């Protein structure tokens, strides 16, 4: 009887919608707690650094957005994109500098900026879910609720990873994505000289049995990815294209079933930026006909932004050996550029 009543009145759907909405709400509140905790910890760190009006600053920057460049006219889109990203980054840095009292190391500023970025992401995730839940409830749209309910476990997982990443960046420990800079650091241990070819990016020269190896990485140990594309472009231009190999080393997302820390070789630029840095490497390699090769260390999305695992740290040693072997294949007197791509949090040079 009850079954017939439900089937003919649509009450079963109402019940289902109610339970799904309740489940979404409870997970959404979990994300809100994470966003609040993240904000609280970021404010604490900023206060320790001597930032005036830390709470207000985090509130303002957690609402910050970037507008993608026009893509129906693709001319110079990567230049415009780079300009927009740098404008945003410079604005964040200025806001921080403006409110800081005293001298604070650049590394600490970078860590604080990444923490604000994580707070911004968690805040955005919470607001988007709340938007869709409210919209669906107002319009009695069971399909939106169903879809939201289905993807909530993934969204919660991403949020938990971001929350965990905040602790890693707060203590400036290397993350999985730092494996590229870690390889670069190990290659740079016997460097002859070190210089800065682009903002927040360093390059060092190493001799490998008569071959010149120029290693590029973001400037650590603060949390930054630097500008490796611009740096490689300058290094190659300074040598008027007299470079025999460009090799990028980066963390790559593994497919489900693949083992963390497994290594793969390929061609092209291994760099996960939205475009500007990658295209700079591709353009300079193409301009002078320089072979562009890549080595990647595989890991999951969660492993890439949280504390580096032992398997990933051990893979770095294997990659260092692979890079050295590859450079030794070049004739004596040759020059190779190797870039350790990724966030250099907790890795110096």
């Amino acid at each position: 009887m009850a079954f017939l009543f439900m089937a003919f009145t649509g009450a079963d759907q109402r019940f289902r919608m109610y339970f799904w909405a309740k489940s979404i709400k409870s997970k959404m509140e979990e994300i809100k707690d994470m966003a609040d905790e993240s904000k609280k910890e970021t404010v604490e760190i900023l206060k320790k650094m001597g930032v005036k009006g830390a709470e207000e600053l985090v509130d303002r920057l957690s609402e910050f957005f970037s507008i993608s460049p026009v893509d129906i006219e693709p001319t110079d889109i990567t230049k415009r994109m780079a300009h927009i990203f740098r404008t945003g980054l410079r604005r964040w840095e200025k806001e921080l500098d403006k409110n800081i009292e005293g001298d604070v190391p650049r590394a600490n500023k970078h860590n604080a900026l990444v923490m604000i970025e994580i707070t911004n992401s968690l805040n955005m995730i919470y607001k988007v879910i709340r938007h869709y839940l409210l919209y669906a409830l107002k319009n009695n749209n069971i399909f939106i609720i169903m879809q939201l309910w289905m993807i909530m476990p993934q969204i919660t997982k991403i949020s938990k990873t971001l929350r965990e990443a905040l602790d890693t960046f707060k203590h400036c420990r290397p993350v999985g994505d730092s494996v590229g800079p870690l390889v670069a650091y190990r290659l740079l241990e016997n460097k002859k000289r070190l210089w800065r070819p682009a903002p927040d990016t360093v390059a060092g020269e190493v001799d490998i049995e008569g071959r010149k190896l120029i290693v590029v990485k973001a400037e650590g140990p603060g949390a930054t990815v630097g500008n490796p594309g611009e740096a490689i472009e300058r290094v190659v231009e300074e040598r008027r294209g007299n470079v025999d190999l460009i090799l990028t080393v980066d963390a790559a997302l593994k497919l489900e079933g693949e083992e963390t820390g497994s290594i793969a070789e390929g061609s092209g630029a291994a760099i996960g930026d939205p475009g500007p840095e990658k295209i700079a490497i591709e353009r300079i390699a193409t301009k002078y006909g320089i072979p562009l090769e890549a080595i990647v260390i595989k890991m999951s999305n969660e492993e890439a932004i949280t504390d580096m695992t032992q398997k990933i740290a051990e893979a770095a040693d294997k990659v260092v050996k692979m890079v050295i072997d590859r450079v030794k294949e070049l004739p004596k007197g040759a020059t190779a550029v190797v870039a350790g791509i990724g966030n250099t949090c907790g890795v110096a040079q």
Partner: protein
Amino acid sequence: MERFEDLVSLAVLAGLVAMTTTMMLFNVKKKKNEEEKKFITVVKCPKCGFTKTRDWKEGDFVGMVEGKCPKCGSLMKIHAIYKEGEEEEEKLPISI
């Protein structure tokens, strides 16, 4: 007969409560394990390769100079910092 049915219902209910409690306790234990993460700092001599490990401490970063090598007397540097243990794989309904 009615008393027997009551007993069965009670037993089922008790079973469910026990199962839920066990699951909750298991989750608490898991969360506790997650909180007890250990971080390791590997210190290495760049000259002779002598390596030692210790617990991570605030302020450590890869490349930081840390004391002299007990073997050759060169300056030792932090070689790696990592999280101890491996991520547990999620259990799947079927094995692949």
